[in-house]
């Protein structure tokens, strides 16, 4: 019994220690954002590796998710003779939920894991320590530009995902199943509100961008500097980012649409 309690206490302390370190890390990174903005060339490189390189998976997934929504929506709306509501269904699901959330999950798998591995490797090969000894602050030179790049990329990726998804739904619903094109768009426009749906979706994806990049960079920074440690950290990044995205999504949805 004592043992069990001791164990619990130790785990608790470790948890708080980890949270504290992550918070300090976050503050350091935010402090470096000014430099990342001033030396935007550094950030540009990172936007390329987290944003541009994630584009293919985002576009392909967005297309398929949109097509599935079109198909499922059509089958079910057809039961109530309400096919013209298909546009609303596709657009609202994408803009409010699926766009930001699926983009966040894909981002964690594609870009987040790569970030963790890269940072972990830099730590393992003493590159971060070497920078510190060269009087170059890794927070500003390495972490802040990657963080900023992620925050910029995520909303753009989510918007691309949603837009491609709406087109995918259009392709299936209007192109293949014969829903009227005019009602697909007009019903959509009548029900999707710019400030309530689109802007909230962008806010959501920006929040996911902060969370995913924070987790990915911190796990790399905190990785045990061995090959095994880095691979573990990469796994942790994907698992924790996915949980963070889903958890945050619930909280944000409740705040934005839930009238709680």
């Amino acid at each position, binding site marked *: 019994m004592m043992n069990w309690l001791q164990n619990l206490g130790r785990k608790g302390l470790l948890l708080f220690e980890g949270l504290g370190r992550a918070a300090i890390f976050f503050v350091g990174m935010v402090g470096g954002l000014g430099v990342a903005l001033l030396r935007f*060339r550094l950030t*540009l*490189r990172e*936007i*390329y590796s987290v*944003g*541009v390189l994630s*584009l293919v998976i985002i576009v392909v997934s967005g297309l398929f998710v949109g097509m599935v929504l079109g198909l499922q929506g059509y089958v079910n709306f057809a039961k109530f003779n309400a096919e013209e509501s298909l546009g609303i269904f596709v*657009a609202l699901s994408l*803009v409010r939920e699926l766009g930001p959330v699926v983009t966040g999950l894909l981002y964690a798998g594609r870009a987040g894991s790569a970030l963790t591995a890269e940072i972990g490797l830099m730590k393992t090969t003493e590159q971060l320590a070497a920078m510190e000894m060269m009087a170059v602050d890794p927070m500003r030179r390495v972490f802040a530009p990657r963080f900023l790049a992620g925050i910029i*990329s995520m*909303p*753009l*990726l989510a*918007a*691309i995902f*949603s*837009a*491609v998804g*709406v087109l995918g739904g259009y392709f299936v619903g209007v192109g293949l199943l014969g829903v009227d094109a005019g009602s697909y*768009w*007009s019903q*959509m*426009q*009548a*029900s*999707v*509100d*710019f400030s309530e*749906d*689109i802007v909230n*979706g*962008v806010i959501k994806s920006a929040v996911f961008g902060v969370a995913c990049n924070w987790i990915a960079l911190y796990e790399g920074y905190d990785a045990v500097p061995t090959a095994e440690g880095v691979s573990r950290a990469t796994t942790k990044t994907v698992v924790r980012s996915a949980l963070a995205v889903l958890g945050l999504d619930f909280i944000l949805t409740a705040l934005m649409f839930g009238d709680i």
Partner: protein
Amino acid sequence: MTTRFIEIMVGAFVAVGCAALFMLAMKVSNLSTLSSAEGYHLTAYFENIGGLKVRSPITVSGVKVGQVTGIVFDPDRLQAKVTLLLEMDHDYFSTDTAASIYTAGLLGEQYIALEPGAEDETLKDGDTVEFTQSALVLEEIVSKFISNVASS
């Protein structure tokens, strides 16, 4: 990988992302449909608005011409005051136009249908629609029907 290549790719990425946002704003959402700058407001008072909401559509002969922008209860008239926003080019509503709240389908959304009258003068920004018909509330109809049956 040259810096130039990266810059071009990132530029293209940001452009595509912004285009996607633009499409979501203009094509998917209601941003393009109406903004108060390019429309005019009318006011209408209803005894009961039923399930009418802000952003509910306003139609003429089934064609959408505007939307509801505000619903408040007016304590002086003891009625619901509904603000309508109509597109600028639909400026042909005569002063005796009637506004009714209908339901699209059996369970569908509620909307306001406008029926132009015979007067020559037309409604201007800030005018009030005089003739209104409230929403049909299912319970009221049912209870009326029952009392009619009972009394006859």
